[in-house]
C-alpha cells in the first residue's frame, strides 16, 4: 500500500467539479483508492462518498492506494490535485 497526505488550498474545498475530475481519474486504476478526512474513510472512486465529506479549505487529507498500479495511481492523483490547484 502507498499513501500520501495533502493540504487542500482551494478556497471552496473539494467541490463538485474537481471532485468529478478526481473520481474520473481514479476510476481508471485497478487499485483500491481511499480518501481519509477527519477519521472518515471513503472510496475515492465514489463521487457521492467524496462529496458527502464536504472537504473544506485547509483540510488535511490522506490518500491511500493498494493494488498493482498503486504507485502510478498516487502519482497521477498528485498531478491532478496540483493541476487543479486543489492541494499542495
Amino acid at each position, binding site marked *: 500500500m502507498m499513501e500520501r497526505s495533502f493540504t487542500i488550498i482551494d478556497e471552496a474545498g473539494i467541490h463538485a467539479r474537481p471532485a468529478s475530475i478526481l473520481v474520473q481519474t481514479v476510476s481508471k486504476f485497478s487499485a483500491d483508492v481511499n480518501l481519509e478526512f477527519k477519521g472518515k474513510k471513503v472510496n475515492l472512486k*465514489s463521487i*457521492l462518498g467524496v462529496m458527502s465529506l464536504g472537504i473544506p479549505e485547509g483540510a488535511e487529507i490522506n490518500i491511500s492506494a493498494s493494488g498493482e498500479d498503486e504507485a502510478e495511481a498516487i502519482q497521477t492523483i498528485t498531478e491532478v490535485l496540483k493541476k487543479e490547484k486543489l492541494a499542495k
Partner: protein
Amino acid sequence: MSGWLTGHGVSAGIAIARAFRLKEPDLAVARRTPADKEAEVRRFECAVEKSRRDLEKVKEQAARELGEDQAAVFAAHLLVLQDPELMDRVKDNILHQGMSAEFALKEAADTFISALESLDNEYMRERSADVRDVAKRVLGHLLGVQVPDLSVIREEVIIVAEDLTPSNTAQLNRKFVKGIITNGGGFTSHSAIMARSMEIPAVAGTQTSLDRIGDGTLLIIDGQEGIVIMNPEQAVVKKYEKKKAAYEEYQAGLAKFAQLPTVSADGCAVRLVANISAPSDADNVLQNGGEGIGLFRTEFLYMGRRQLPTEDEQFAAYKNVLERMKGKPVVIRTLDIGGDKQLPYLNLPKEANPFLGFRAIRLCLKRPDLFRTQLRALLRASTCGNLKITFPMIAALQELRQAKQLLLEEKENLVKAGIAVADKIEVGMMIEVPSSAVMADVFAKEIDFFSIGTNDLIQYTLAADRMNKQVAYLYEPFHPAVLRLLKTVIDAAHKEGKRAAMCGEMAGMEAAIPVLLGMGLDEFSMNASAVLPARKLISQLSKKEIGQSMDQMLQMETAEQVKQFISKHFPIKLG
C-alpha cells in the same frame, strides 16, 4: 373545454401550438422481499445499464443542442450511476437486507441525499437533485414504466408539466418546443431559467394546468403576462398571432441596443445596471447589455441553511460575481435581514412591527461578529474587480458612521495581516427611510453614492404595507411626496459631486424612467431583462426637455395628475 389559466410569466414571448402533456410516471415502491436475491441483483444491474445508455444519449444530445456546459450535468449523472458506494449499498440491501431492487435503490439514494443535504455548502446541497434525478431514471427502468422522452417530439408543441427536471430540459428541441407551462416553479426555478436562456416563452405556477389541459389541446401562452388560453376562438388566435409578430419585431429591434451605451436623445449619458441575488445571475446581466450590478443582495448567502455562512464562503461568492463582471462596477449591499426575511438560526424574537424593527444595519451593528465577517469577505474580494459597498436601511447619521468605522477597522486589520485590499473602495448607503432622504444633504458629505431603494422608501413615506390589499392603493411611486423626496436626494448628491443611483422596482418602470431621467438620476438598476427596453426608451427622451417640466410635476397635487402628465408628454405606455 375552453378557458383561461394564469400563472407567472417567467420567459417572455408568445406561442401558439398544441399541448404535449408530460406526465410523471407513478414510481411508488411497495416493500416486498424477492424470492431469488441473485436474480434481483441482476435485474438491478440491467436497469442501471439501460439508464447508462439513456444518459450517454442525453449527454450527447445536450452537448449538441445546449453546449458542453449543460452536458456536464449528465457527465455528473453518469458518475453517480457508476458510484461504487451507491451501487454496493443497493446490492447489500438486496442480498443482506432482503429488499427488492426498487426499495433497495430508494433507501440507498435517500441516504446519500440526506448526507448531501446536511452539508453547509449550498452548491453541494443542490447536487442532491442529481442523485434524485438518477434514482428516478433507474426506478423507471426497474418498474418498466416509460419515463417520458421529450427528444422524440417532432411537431410544434407547448409542453405542459408539473415541473421540468434538468434531464427534461436537456432534451428540449427548440425547433419543436414552442412554449412551456408548469404547475409549479417560479421565476428562479430551473425550468424558468432554462426557458429564458433558450428563449422559449414560459408560464410557471399555474397550479392546475395538468388537470385541465388535455393532450393536443390548442393553446396560446403569453410568457410576459403569464396567461394560458385553452381552445381559443379563431379571432383570439388572430389577435395573438399579431401580438407575436409585434413582439418578435420588437425583440429584433432591441438586440442592437445591447452593444450601445445609454444616451438620451439630447446626448446625456446615464448608466443602466442590474439587480441580482446570486453570482450566476451576472452572466444574464452581461447578455442583456447591463453596464454593471447596481444591487447584489447578499441575503441568499444566509438563507435556506442552518448556520451563518463562513467568511471564505462569502469571499468565494463575492469574488465570483466580481470576476464574472470583468471590471464593471458591482455594488454589493451588506446583509438586509429582518422584516419579511427571517433567518431561523439567529433566533430573533418575534416583533409586532418587523418592518419598523430590528433589521438590516440595525441588526448588523448589534451583531458586529456577523457584520465584521461579511465586511472582511468583501474587503478580501475587493481586488478581484470593481467593488462598491452599500449599507441598507440607514436612518441616522450615527449608523452610517459606525458602519464605516467597522469597515475601516477591518480594512486595517487585513492590511496589517498582509492581505491585499483595493486602495479605493466606494462606499454608499441605501436611501430607504424618509429621514435619510430629508437629510440627504448631510449624508452626501460622508458617502460616495446613494442607492435609492424605492420599494421601502415608498412604503415608509406613505405608511402603507404594499402586501396588505386593503392599503395597497396608497403604495404609489408617482405620489408627489415620493417624487419630491427623490428630487431632494438626487440634488443633494449632485451638490457634493456624488452619484445618485436607484435600485428599487421604480427604476425599471417604463412610466417612471422619463421622470427619473429628468430629475438627473445617474444610475438605474433593474431586472436584467428590463435593461434593453429602458435603453431604447431613454434614447428617445430628451433629458433637458423633461427637466424643464420638472417643477411643474413636483407642484402637482395627486399621483393621478402626475401620471396623466407623463402619458400625455412622453412616448410611453402606462401600465
